């Protein structure tokens, strides 16, 4: 793999003077890759950007998933590498290092808003109210290091109905699953002081116990297609689905959000981070491309104008970040201040 990458780079440098047509040595439209959660927002901005700026071509947006997108984004500087990475989580330290190794040193991080990971059931369902501990105990492969025995929600918590545990959710390759593990399972796991202590002594074991999901059929991996989960929930009112908040909002006449610790997923509870499943969404812009790719600066500015509570991204299901976060990121978007690699975890 490294050999191929090196070859490509060498080939690209050879041709950069020639300006070959097929090599894409120059490009007149923006290319974005990355998260499927951010995809609908970036495409909406791309469309609006193309309508408002008649001189620029519409940007190309590819939905590859956050992790695969980061690999493409960090592969190097040049016309064949994307300019923008859509991310449903923050860039990792290893990714920053990978980027730096390939010459991608200037990265601009912009938080575009908040997304909520909603747990939902059919309107005909039993109207459950859960806590992170309940969810962790019901879904972990080995809850608190002990074998999983729960068959119904009642086994987990006697106040819950005696319906079989059946949760439809994203596969491990999805950014939504990462966030679900981090925001819900991990929190539920750490409710046990022994687990919180284990995190300090043996982080790997802690991760395995706290985020590994059972594989005996109670958790159904439903691919990346959230519409499918909505259909299945309608057909099986006893099951629970995990997906992005925008799907819950769009299907509000069929589905009901499940309260976690008494907080129902709504626009307000997610915007204030009261709902435990709230997570920030980002775009990363390649600093070295800002002057080379026409319209990239204007595109970032267009994004900043769209993410407010009155912006058109709200209608697409994006939840606006608090006013101070928006102000800070709007400043980054206009001044294009690079992100400090030391901040990455």
């Amino acid at each position, binding site marked *: 793999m490294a050999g191929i990458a090196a070859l490509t780079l060498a080939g690209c440098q050879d041709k950069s003077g020639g300006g070959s047509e097929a090599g894409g040595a120059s490009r007149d439209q923006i290319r974005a890759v990355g998260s499927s959660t951010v995809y609908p927002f970036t495409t909406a901005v*791309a469309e609006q950007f193309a309508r408002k700026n008649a001189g620029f071509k519409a940007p190309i*947006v*590819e939905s590859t998933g956050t992790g695969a997108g980061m690999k493409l984004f960090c592969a190097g500087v040049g016309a064949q590498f994307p300019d923008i990475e859509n991310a449903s989580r923050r860039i990792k330290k290893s990714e920053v290092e990978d980027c730096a190794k390939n010459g991608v040193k200037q990265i601009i991080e912009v938080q575009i808003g908040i997304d909520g990971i909603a747990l939902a059931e059919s309107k005909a369902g039993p109207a459950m109210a859960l806590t992170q501990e309940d969810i962790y105990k019901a879904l972990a492969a080995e809850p608190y290091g002990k074998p999983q025995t729960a068959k119904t929600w009642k086994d987990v918590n006697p106040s819950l109905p005696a319906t079989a545990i059946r949760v439809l959710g994203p596969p491990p390759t999805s950014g939504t699953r990462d966030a679900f593990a981090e925001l819900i399972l991990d929190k539920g796991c750490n409710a046990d002081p022994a687990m919180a202590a284990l995190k300090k002594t043996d982080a790997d074991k802690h991760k395995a116990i706290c985020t590994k999901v059972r594989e005996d059929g109670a958790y159904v991996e439903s691919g990346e297609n959230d519409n499918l989960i909505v259909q299945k929930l309608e057909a099986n009112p006893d099951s629970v689905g995990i997906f992005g908040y925008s799907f819950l909002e769009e299907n509000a006449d069929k589905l009901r959000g499940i309260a976690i610790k008494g907080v129902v997923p709504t626009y307000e509870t997610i915007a204030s981070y009261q709902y435990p499943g709230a997570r920030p969404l980002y775009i990363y812009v390649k600093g070295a491309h800002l002057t080379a790719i026409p319209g990239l600066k204007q595109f970032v500015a267009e994004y900043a104008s769209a993410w407010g509570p009155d912006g058109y991204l709200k209608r697409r299901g994006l939840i606006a970040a608090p006013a101070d976060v928006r102000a800070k990121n709007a400043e980054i978007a206009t001044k294009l201040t690079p992100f400090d690699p030391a901040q990455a975890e």
Partner: protein
Amino acid sequence: MNSTLVAGVPATGAEPPAPARTPTDWRGAKMQGSIRRRYAAERRFRLLGLGAVLLSAGFLVFLLWTMVGNGARGFTQTELRLDVDFPASTLMIDPAALAGPGKDAALAGADIEGATTAAATAAFGTDGERLLSDGAWLTVRDAIAADPTILRRKAQIWVPAATNIDLAAKGDAAPEDEAAYARLDKAGVTKTGLNLTFLKNADSTDPTLVGVWGALKGSLLTMFVTIVLAFPVGVLSALYLEEYAPRNRWTDLIEVSINNLAAVPSIIFGLLGLAVFLNFMDMPRSAPIVGGLTLALMTMPVIVIAGRNAIKSVPPSIRDAALGIGASRVQVVFHHVLPLALPGILTGTIIGMARALGETAPLLMIGMRAFIASPPGGLTEPATVLPVQIFLWSDEVSRGFVEKTSAAIIVLLVFLMLMNGIAIYLRNRFERRW
């Protein structure tokens, strides 16, 4: 009855008397039972065959029924009549400027979106803009561009309705949208007609503005590259292997390799395309030329195998006769063998092309699953193809995309049927019997 002999035994008296045989008793219970079993087996087999045909026809009917049932609505669109009072609006465009070359700049500079929103509020109440599609102002802009004189008067413009209203008109929406539609319908400002946008636009984020043309054109360009490469290479390989190549261990090895290649899962070709065309040869990502090259690799072995079988089935007597009257090898091949083998080769080619047309996996690897808002202009411009477009739409949040997905499937099926139809026509035209 007695004179009836068992068939095949000659009834000549000269033969020595055969050992005494009891003639078959056709009316006997045993024989009658056996005959009944025989007929029953015939009937059973016929019914089983008929059942198999009916079952597969049933699946096809079910598929078409659900697709047409869901997708037919995707080809229609609800429009609302918007009364725009241009002289009273905040729109600042000089009609004279629209006549000159500065037309685009003048249109881009004006706040048509704001004027459309204002007109919607005036016409339909405070939430009026929510009833219109996000792209309603584009229709208004086009109307102004087509006839600048409307800026001097009040005009009635039919603009696309929001996707909720569109679904309500088709009877599949939340109760409040149904109520809003009923109110509009009563006022007589709605109409539902053929959705031309769907046939001439490319991808969009708003289901009222999406179109299938971008993906269809991408598919056509990709298929063009595939056939231009795979057909000549495949047919020439088949001809060489059948007519010229010596039979030895090397040609056996090549034959086995080609058969293996035809059975390789398509995703592997995608990875190959990624490594060779994008990473090594530095070709543009998401371009139809790369998609076509990748699919040509996948289709070629199918054409070679079908071509070899078709060439093999040309009777050797035809070759011998042609050689016998002094034709050269090339003349034999091009005047006799190839025309006779062509129907078979074409059938194989179309099957290979149909498979390539429906292929998604390898194209995902080379970046053809992107959001592309304008139809591709050439072979190196970013494009997507029909099956990938269907895959992308099936994952969209907005409910309006459900019917658009089914409509795109119908377009793909029609395209496939056209291809198969051409194949059958060509086969019948070239077919010769002897």
